[in-house]
């Protein structure tokens, strides 16, 4: 009788052990997901780049004062590099910058986007429900002025890097 109880007892112990080992492995085996912070940092970096002390940076404007934007030199101007680890062949970042007149916040008077355009869909999907395997996004909106005129700036950034942040 005692031996039977012992066998069952150890069978239960083994079951408990397997369950605990599985749970611990699942918990600690999952990588830290830092993509949201990273996306937020990119947005902040882009915001600091185009607007300083509440005023749009002068390099965005042409000689005649018109909003010329970036001349394919966003990465150089903003000191951002979109290169990632060799395990990915496609860009893992997406950055969108939109400049709007305060009276019309639907149509940008200027926009610039770079990186992996496929990640826009991830940002749209993440608005309704959170999907771990999709890219994480960060949106930033603020007002800035230039020569007395006020502008609304919208910045959207997305970071994929799923393989390094999700199990």
């Amino acid at each position, binding site marked *: 009788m005692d031996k039977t109880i012992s066998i069952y007892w150890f069978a239960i112990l083994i079951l408990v052990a397997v369950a605990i*080992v599985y749970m611990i492995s699942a918990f*600690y085996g999952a990588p830290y997901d*830092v993509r949201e912070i*990273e996306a937020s940092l990119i947005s902040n*970096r882009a915001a600091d780049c185009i607007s300083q002390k509440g005023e749009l940076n002068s390099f965005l404007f042409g000689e005649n004062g018109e909003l010329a934007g970036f001349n394919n030199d966003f990465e150089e101007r903003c*000191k*951002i*590099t979109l290169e990632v*680890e060799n395990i990915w062949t496609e860009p893992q970042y997406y950055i969108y910058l939109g400049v709007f007149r305060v009276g019309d916040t639907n149509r940008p008077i200027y926009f610039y986007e770079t990186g992996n355009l496929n990640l826009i869909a991830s940002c749209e999907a993440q608005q309704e429900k959170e999907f771990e395997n999709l890219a994480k996004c960060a949106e930033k909106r603020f007002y800035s002025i230039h020569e007395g005129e006020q502008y609304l700036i919208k910045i959207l950034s997305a970071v994929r890097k799923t393989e390094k942040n999700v199990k």
Partner: protein
Amino acid sequence: MIGRRKKGTILMENIIFIILNLAFISILLLFIFKQGNGDALLEQAYAKKIALLIDASKPGTEIFLEMSDASEISPEWWNENFENAVSINGNLVTVKLRENGGYSYSFFNDVAPIVDMSPEGKIYMVIRDG
């Protein structure tokens, strides 16, 4: 006489049973503790932490980071290789705390950080213009 011998057997069985249970619980706790302080986990955590610190920094920033627990993973390896425990190649941070380990994570900030690691596991970083 027979009754006395039987009681002795029961006591012995119980002691073995308790010892086995204690051994089981100890092994389980050791496993949980080892997993929690996992080498790979620590490498990943530090690589990502350093990459995010660099991303949030402007040129001229000085960063001090305490990573003394990193030196406890493999003390022998650490004593010989602590200077290379954290390396930056281009925009890739690599943290390596053991012989067959290493974890890399990229940062987007186009800067050139300089890293100096002390034997006690204190890291000093200066962010320079890229």
